[in-house]
Each structure stands twice: as C-alpha cells, then as structure tokens.
C-alpha cells in the first residue's frame, strides 16, 4: 500500500533522451524560424507542459487505460466528428478543434486511443485471432482511417490505420491473411489512386518521381529540401548559417521540413547524431515492450512506439525525397503544441505500461 505513494513511475533512459531531443528541438526551431524568440518560448512552454503530462500519465496504472479504452476511443472519435462538422479550415483541410484559444489536432488522440482499444479488445483472446475478432478490429480501423482521411489528411489517416494494424499484427494476425490483404491492396491500387486520392495528393506522388518536371510548383518543396540537406555536407553550414533556411528557399522550415534545416546547418554529423538519439529511444521502447508485465502492456507499447517510429520514418523519408510530400511533422522537434503534447502523452502511456510491474499475488 505504502509503495504506491512512495514510488514514482518513470524511465530514466526515456526521460533523459526525450529531454535531450526536445531541448535540441528548441534550438533547431530557433534557427528554422529565423530567430523567432516568441515562438521558441511558446514551444518551450509546451515542452515543459508535455513533460509534466508525461510524468503524470506515467503514474496511472495500465489497468486504468485498459478499463477506459472504449470511452477514450469514443471521445476521440467524437472530437473528430466535431472537427469535421465545425472545425476551422486551415490550408484547405479541417483538422483542428478549437477549445478556447487552444486548437488541437483531433486526430492526434486517435493515434493513441485506437491502439489501446484494440489491445484491450485482443489481449485476452486466444491465438490465433479468430475471423470474427479480426473483422471487428479491421472495421474499427477502417472507420477511423476514413474519418481522418476525409478531413482530408491522408498522411495522418494512414498513421492512425497503422497504429491499429500494428496492434493487430503484434497480437498474432495470421500471415496468410496479411498476404491476402497485401494482394488486395496491390490490386486495388489503381482504384485508390483514382477514387480516394485528391488531385493534390496525386500531384505529390507524381512529383516525387520527377520533381524537376515542375520546379516552381509541386516540385519546389522537395527540390529545395534536397538542396538544403545536400549543401549541408558533412559538418553543416553552422547554426543559423543555412542559406536555404535563412533566405526562405526552404518551405515549412518550422514544421514538416525542419529536418532539412538540421541537415543544412549541422550536416551529416548532426543528422547522424539526431537519428542515433531517435534510434536509442526506439530501442528503449522495444526493450520496454519485451519486458512489459502483460500482453496488454506489450501490445500498447509496441503499437504506440511503432506508430511513433512510422511517423518519424515518414517525415524523414519525405524530406529526403524517398516518399511523396505528406503533412507530417518531425516528432518532438517540429513546431506545434498538439503534436508535442500528444507525443508526451504517448510516452507517458509507454512509461506507465513499461514501468508498472505485476504485483505478485499474495
């Protein structure tokens, strides 16, 4: 009874590396925003708040998340619906819900509630997963995907779907089913291209393969991003010295393309160190997942950390020109309160799941 209050649940490795990452992020943001102090201060406030949230969430017992998972999912779908109906339109897409002066990207919550809900749904089922359970799970995933993708935010929609699919996969989805699903996806790809994708999304994919075809239009972002990263060389141009960044050739430096800023100003060395930090965090998550106390925790840690990793990889691949341009921030570094808060929230859950050990029955 007494150790419930004396013990603070936290993971020193994650805490330290996330602290390092988000502090570095503030420096990068300072340069990327052409030394916008006000912006950096606001962002540091979010970082501080995020840490508090993370530590707070870490203290909750995993069972709390398990028990409230359905409520959590319904709440986030509800928020999404509100956004869809009433949210302000920003850049042609409705993604934000405004509460007072605080706007929140409602799909962020879904990235957490969906894997938790599915983990809760599947953790006590026998292996292998039965078709009925699979259909239920997949239906929920598809529903969530459609809700987000219709905003339209295909990138986040895919991430949300992935967050669910990761859990489904980790809980033992049969390989033959995965193979079949993959085949269907390939067969349906022309349909997806023509029906599901908006013209601007088609444009982005086309641009990836030939950015020079439209150097001042759709290709501009990716060309400038590659120039920024490439011109950084091994050691970079120095903090605040990147001409691509400081003279605004690079688009969206504070958000999606902040990695290009890092590449330009800190070079390959900086990129390598940053990626190592991310890699360390992921490895720690993997360790926590493997050593978690029960199947539910394992599934949640695995699902959330893999979602985080996918998010990261998609952003990186996009800015280096390996994937089409999708709106996806660089976790912990890009400007944006809701992204930061939900990331810290996610790592709070991971910490909670990873550090709460089972009481041995007495």
């Amino acid at each position, binding site marked *: 009874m007494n150790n419930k209050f004396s013990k603070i649940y936290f993971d020193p490795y994650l805490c330290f590396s996330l602290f390092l990452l988000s502090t570095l992020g503030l420096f990068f943001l300072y340069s990327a925003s052409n030394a916008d102090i006000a912006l950096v201060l606001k962002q540091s406030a979010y970082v501080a708040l995020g840490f508090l949230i993370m530590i707070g969430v870490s203290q909750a017992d995993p069972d709390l998340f398990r028990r409230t998972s359905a409520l959590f999912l319904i709440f986030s779908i509800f928020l999404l619906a509100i956004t869809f109906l009433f949210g302000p339109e920003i850049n042609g897409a409705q993604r934000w819900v405004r509460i007072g002066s605080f706007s929140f990207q409602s799909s962020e919550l879904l990235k957490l509630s969906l894997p938790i809900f599915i983990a809760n749904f599947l953790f006590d089922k026998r*292996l292998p997963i039965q078709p009925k359970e699979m259909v239920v799970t997949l239906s929920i995933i598809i529903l969530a995907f459609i809700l987000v993708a219709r905003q339209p935010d295909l990138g986040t929609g895919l991430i949300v779907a992935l967050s669910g699919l990761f859990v489904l996969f980790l809980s033992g989805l049969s390989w033959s089913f995965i193979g079949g699903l993959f085949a269907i996806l390939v067969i349906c790809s022309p349909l997806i291209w023509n029906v599901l994708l908006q013209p601007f999304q088609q444009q982005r994919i086309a641009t990836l393969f030939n950015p020079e075809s439209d150097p001042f239009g759709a290709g501009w972002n990716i060309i400038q991003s590659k120039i920024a990263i490439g*011109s950084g060389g091994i050691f970079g141009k120095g903090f605040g010295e990147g001409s691509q960044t400081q*003279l605004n050739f690079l688009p969206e430096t504070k958000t999606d393309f902040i990695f290009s800023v890092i*590449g330009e100003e800190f070079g390959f060395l900086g990129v390598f160190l940053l990626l190592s930090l991310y890699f360390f965090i992921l490895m720690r998550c993997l360790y926590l997942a493997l050593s978690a106390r029960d199947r539910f925790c394992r599934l949640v840690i695995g699902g959330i950390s893999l979602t985080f*990793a996918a998010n990261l990889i998609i952003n990186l691949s996009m800015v280096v020109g390996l994937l089409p341009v999708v709106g996806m921030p660089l976790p912990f570094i890009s400007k944006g309160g809701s992204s930061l808060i939900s990331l810290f929230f996610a790592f709070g859950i991971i910490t909670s799941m990873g550090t709460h050990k089972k009481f041995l029955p007495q």
Partner: protein
Amino acid sequence: MIFEERQVEKNNFSSRVVFLFVLLGISFLAVLFQVFALQVSSYSSYQLAALNNKNYSIPIQPLRGEILDRKGDAIVRNELTFDLITQPDLIKNPKLFLERIKPVVYLSPQEETDYLQKFQEKAFVNKELVLKKNLTAEEIARFNVRSFIFKNAFIGKRYRRVSDYPKIFSHVVGYSSRSDQQFDFSINIPRSHWVDAELTYANGLIQGKTGLEETYNQHLIGKHGERVYEINAKGRLVQSLEYYPPERGLDLNTHLDIDAQASAALSLGNRKGAVVAIELKSGGINVLYSSPSYSINKLSNGMSEEEFQNLITDPDKPFFNRAAQGRYPPASTIKPAIGMFGLTNKLIEWDDEIDDPGFFTLPENGRIYRGWKKGGHKNVNLKKALLVSSNTYFFKLAYKSDMKDLASYLSSFGFGQKVCGDCYDEDAVFLPTPDWKFKNLNSSWFTGDTVNIGVGQGYLVSTPMQLAHYIAIIANKGEILPLSIVQADQTLSRIDNSNNIKLPKADWAKMHDALTGVIESDYGTARSIRDLKNFKVAGKSGTAELVSLDSKEAYLEVRDTELLRDHSIIIAFGPMPNPQYAVSVVIENGESGGAVAGPVAIEVLKSLLNEQ
C-alpha cells in the same frame, strides 16, 4: 497450461515486434543512406545549387570604346548626361507622379505624353524608364533637395552614343542601339538576369547594329562587370556580396579622315552618289561616303516612328550604302584596265595607231558601236585613246579579247569581289562571263557583249569601293592593297591579295603619264578640273549610260528625265608624280563625268593633302 499459452503468446509477440523494429531499422538505414548520398556523395552539386539559389549576379554595362579618325579625333564618342530615371514598378499612379514631379523638373507636354505612353506599354529598359534626359544643373539641384520625397526616381549618370558628325559617317560607322537578344557570354551570368543589368547607357544594353559599330562590336563593347547580390526566396536583395568593375571597350583607330569625309559630303551636296578615298601606302579607307544619308544620333538615341518610316520609304533610299553596294557601270574608267590587258596579252603596243572614225563596226553583223564624239579622233594610239577617251580604240581592243581572259584580268583588280576587308555591307557584285550570262540570262555570249565591256558598259558593273580599289592599284603601280577602314593593328580585315598586277615598269610610267594627261593636258577629257588645284592629279573620268540611245531625239528626252540621266564617274589619284591618295566618285544622274564628279574628287584629295 495458462503459463504455457502465455509463453507461446509472448514468443509470438516478441518475434513480431522484433520483426517490425527490424523493418523500421531498415527504413532508418535507407534514410541515413539517402542523407549520406545527398550530403557526402552529391555534396558539390547541391552546394552549387544552394549558391545559385541565393546568389544573384547581375551584369554591369561597360562603356563602349570611341571611334576615332586617323588624327585621333572622335567620330563617335560617349556623352555623359544626367537623366531623371524612374522605377515604374514603384509607381502606382503615373499621372499623379508626374503632377508631383513637375514643380521640380520642367516637362514639355510631349515628354509627359511620351512618358505615360511608355509607362502603359511597359516599354522600360531594365526596370527603368527615363522621364527626362539631359537635366540642367538647376534641375539636378532642385531634385536632389527633394529626392527623399521621390523614392521611385533618381538622377542617373547615363551615357549616350553620339557623333558630332551624325550625318556624314552614317554608312561607314553605322549605329548602335538597344538590343534585348544579345548577351555577353564571356561572363557567366544567366540570361534571365540581364533584365536587371546595371546600366551605363541611357538606352540600355546597346549593341552595334550596322557599320563599324557592328563589325567591331566585340572590340568596342568592353567587358561587362558583375555584381553579386544575396537574395532571398522572394527575390528581394539582401546584401551585395561581390563587385567586379566593368572594363571599358577599346577605342577604334580608323583611317577615316573627318575633314576629307566632310569635304566629300559638302561637295556632293544633296546629290545622290558616293565617294571613296584610299591612302595608298596603307590601303586605309579615308573617305567612305554615301549620299543621301541619315542621322546616326537619332537612330541610336530615339527616332520617332514617323521619321523612321520617312527614311525607309524615301525614294532616294538613304539607308542604302551606295559606296559599298551601289552597282554602277564603270564606263570609260575601265579603259586603263582594258588597255593594260591589251599590253599584257600583246594585243596592242603603246605606239600602235588605229583610225577612229567615231564608231566601230562589228564585223560579224555590221552593228555599229558609237563613240562619244561625232567624227571620231582620227589617228589614235593607247595614250591618246586614254586621254580623249576614244571608244573606238577600246571597242576594237575588246573585240580582239577573249572574254574569259579579260574577266579574270579584271578580277585581279578586284572587280566581282569584295575588296574592303571590314566594310559592314559590301557587295561583291559579279563579273560578266559567258558562263555568268548563260546562268543568269539564259543566253549565250556575243562578241558584241565583249565590245561593250571594252568601254565599261554592257553587263559590267562595279561599286565605288571597287573603283577606288582599282584605281589605287594603278596608282600603286600594280601593288594590290588589302583595304581596311580600321588601322592595321586593330583591323579584322582578312582579305589577302598576294598576286600583284604585273606590267613592265616602263608601261606603268606611261600609264601614269597618260592618266595624268587626262586631267592635266590640253586634250584630256577631264581638263576642266585642271585649275581647281595646285598639284597634279591623274585619273580617268566616265559617263555611265543608263539607256542606250540611237537617236538625238531620244537623247534630249533622257536629258529631261533626271533619273534616266547618265551617272558621272571619276577615279583619280595624286599628287603626281608620287601619288598618296586614290579616290573614286560616282554621282547618280550627274551626266558628264569629268566636269561633275571631278571637282568632288579634287576637293577630297585637297582635303586629304591639307591643301585646302
């Protein structure tokens, strides 16, 4: 049982989560590899791309070299003016702007309407529009005091290309004007940046368009300077990084002589024609004048559309360079060459005499070829034939000649060829041969055709430039000079005539003697100009018939119609016996050669010899 199942589940989970993390790890490596490819393998090309992004280099226009005459006086120079220059992209309402600036500088109603029109038409030069040229000192002072109000205008130091003799050097010097299509590729500045060039001339990036300005453009233009700006993605200038000053173009030293050219223009007056004068020791062209002419200053610095149309549609064709392109029958001026052909080919001797009854009858068909004097010149040898310009003598000589041989002999004097090494627009014309006639007129060559050529008529035509070249060779006793307007160290002339006209020394002396007699003796056809000077001149006059006349009535009719009147021609050199200059003059519809063209030639020679 439960424990076992949990273990199975755990193993299953572990392998799957590791599988996914390995996949992600591979993606990580792919990203890292791509970053490596960008930053390490392709570093230099991306570094260059980043530099090209931020560095915006613009050319700085150099000052063109001046064109100097042989004494070093400027024929074309750069004149500095202070202009009120506006920046149209900073002016929202041009009318309002004019109202505000009018108290500062005086604007004529014409200047106002011109400005507004150019503003509407966006007829700017590199984002600049000149509002008023040649500001007075007072206007400059007034503007400078108020310049802080006018952020969209400034006083610019701008040059203009001007000639102090705008109408007499038009054809030879040509003009330069704004050109949007020609760039200096010797500096590595992208084409699109040239609209932002820093200007030195009020007319923008000027290039030579005709004449020496065109031929020697590379020599005159100089080297563009460069200013490198750092710009941001919106194209705003952030700062100036580097500056390389432009290099002024080289001055062009020509053989032209302002005084002689002016005297040619003056003595030709408003008659149509051309004058070419050559310095014998250098082959330099001292005079190259074609009349009527036009003002190169106006053409370079802005001419109204109406004025330009008038020039183009003028029936006298002022743009036509008669000196280098006009095709005139050489008429009697060809006779010395025909005579020399006869001597060289042993068809005649100096002392061989013929009877000149005033006409020549072609033995084949009895056709009669008349001389200019009724009754003829009686007994005529070569010298007398040249002096009195006996047609009969040269009809007979030509009758004995083979046309192919004659044509090739004439070509060694430069007929049918370009002779001026650096003229902008010289016409080579052609040499009439049996082949030429068959190709062009689809008719075979008759002996009568050769007979006509003996007196420089028929199919034979030449330019005043070719005539001057021809007489210069005679004056130089057979030495062929490559002609050039520009002095030897700068000339672009690549004409290299190596085979000289060979004639025994004694024959040259006799030829000079005979041609001196044309002007200086009592019998010479051009004796009327003998007393216009106090040095001796040799030469040959000619009257080029434009229509062949068979009756006296026809002759009188032609006299009344100016455009059908004969051209008068003279080719001359002097002072004798040691000639320094050769000159050719053609006056269209001027009639009798010696008396009309002669005085012009004498004026030019006097000017060249400083015997004014």
